[in-house]
């Protein structure tokens, strides 16, 4: 594990980070090496962290671990708020076909855990924000891929999550729709001051959406990070890391 946390400003002392991960370990039975072996990261309130990395580096495993979908072997995951409010958007929208668009967005309100934060009137606000008001009562089978994924973002936002976890949310869409939705999500994140943990394999998506971009290089965690707004990071710089990333140096803690 890296001994220091080089050059990375921590969250302001007054506010706790939205998410703190320390020493996360995860092995799959039968696998020769662990999928995650001491991963650390900090996600600040209101920022979008885009996680890039080669296929099989375990970045999706990391997201699933944070989402509680993978039992852990060690380490800790702490949310800023004690009730660990997060929501996940998966690569496939996973909408419930027996419900309308509006009912899909309101799904979280049917679960006791979200009762204190969920207001039905917010669903209508969200439909407006997401540009889905005209489709509110449409059966979800009739939606395009991009519309369906916007509904799935709305379903996540309806429970007012402290952290929004996005697992390659746009990778199944055609390039034009993908670009539209990236810009749309960028605006949404700013407008609603969202805290986002985004796993992607699309370098341009990471640059478009990420306040910070972390390069996830394998079980030990992050190797490099960029702050596009400050450094003017280019896709080329990031791609260079894909080509020569495994230099054996210690991991970064981001």
């Amino acid at each position, binding site marked *: 594990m890296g001994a220091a946390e080089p050059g990375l400003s921590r969250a302001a002392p007054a506010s706790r980070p939205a998410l703190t991960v320390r020493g996360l370990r995860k092995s799959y039975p039968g696998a020769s090496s662990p999928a995650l072996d001491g991963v650390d990261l900090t996600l600040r309130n209101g920022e979008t962290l885009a996680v890039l990395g080669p296929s099989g580096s375990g970045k999706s495993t990391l997201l699933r671990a944070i989402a509680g979908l993978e039992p852990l072997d060690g380490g800790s995951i702490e949310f800023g708020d004690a009730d660990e409010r997060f929501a*996940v958007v998966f690569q496939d929208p*996973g909408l419930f076909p027996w419900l309308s668009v509006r009912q899909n967005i309101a799904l979280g309100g049917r679960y006791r855990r979200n009762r204190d934060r969920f207001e039905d009137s917010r669903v209508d606000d969200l439909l407006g924000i997401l540009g889905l008001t005209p489709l509110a009562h449409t059966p979800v089978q009739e*939606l395009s891929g991009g519309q369906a994924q916007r509904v799935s973002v709305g379903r996540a936002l309806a429970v007012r999550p402290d952290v929004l976890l996005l697992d390659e949310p746009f990778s199944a869409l055609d390039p034009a729709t993908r670009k539209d939705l990236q810009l749309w999500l960028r605006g949404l994140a700013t407008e609603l001051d969202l805290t986002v943990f985004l796993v992607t394999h699309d370098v341009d998506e990471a640059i478009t959406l990420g306040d910070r971009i972390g390069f996830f290089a394998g079980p030990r965690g992050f190797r490099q990070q960029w702050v596009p707004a400050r450094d003017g990071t280019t896709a080329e710089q990031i791609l260079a890391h894909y080509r020569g990333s495994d230099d054996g140096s210690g991991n970064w803690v981001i």
Partner: protein
Amino acid sequence: MSGAHRTPQDASGTPTDLDDVARTGPSRSDPSSSDPSRSGPDGPGPGRSAPARTSRRTGSPWAGPAWGVFGVLVTVAVWWAFTHAAAGASTMIAAFQPERMPGAVASLFERGVVVQDGLTSLWRLLCGLAVATGLGVPLGLLIGSYRRFRWTSAPVVQFLRMVSPLSWAPVAVALLGVGNAPVIFLVAAAAVWPITMNTAAGVKALDPLHLRVAETLGATPVERLRTVVLPSIRPFVMTGVRLALGISWVVIVPAEMLGVSSGLGYEILNARDRLAYDEMLVVILVIGLLGMALDQLAQWLLREPAPRR
């Protein structure tokens, strides 16, 4: 988009009829019936598309029903010819002559038995189906959800469903006495397996992503059951109930020949004992017609609903 709502589908309507091949060649195919995700789990499902298919092929929406009427007329003609040709051989066959039916119907209605017995049979059928659904759906949920339960129960379930429910008739009468209870028991014993098997198939066809979505939104196991599992398996359960309905209607007639003194099955034996063979045949016709009506009603009641708005 993911999560296409997998639905049991009519397995009986073949995509291409043979007389159709002769007329139009093999090039016409029906896309709705070739979708592999819509194959049913256990026999035929709600046959929504059959009438539409017929009309598309032959041009007129009345062609199918018209051929049906023709089929009935041919059958009646054969029936008439046979019962007249063989009338000398047996008094029973003579009593079966079609022209004697109106008199038999009148006689049955006069005694008020057909309506009363039909209602009695229907009531027992509904009770049996309710019991079978109440047992079959939870059992199917368990079989579909838990591997170990599936492995443990498989030999017993396979054994029980291959035992004709009527084999239990003496046991049912001995334990439950005479009256409605043994009939309801036998109907439930026949109806429980299609419902169980279809429910289990529905659970196995669940989209794991739907479960994960509910889980990450904080659903408890009970909430997952209510908001994901039950709505997902609904079409499978409906198909199971419809299959069960058909089997139950077949089983209820012999079941009513044992230990009860009402119902359509009893009425067949009653007519035989009174040597009123024409009335016996009328009861058989009523059983068939009621069964057809029940199946139509079930198709309509158990059709897949449009998403709630």
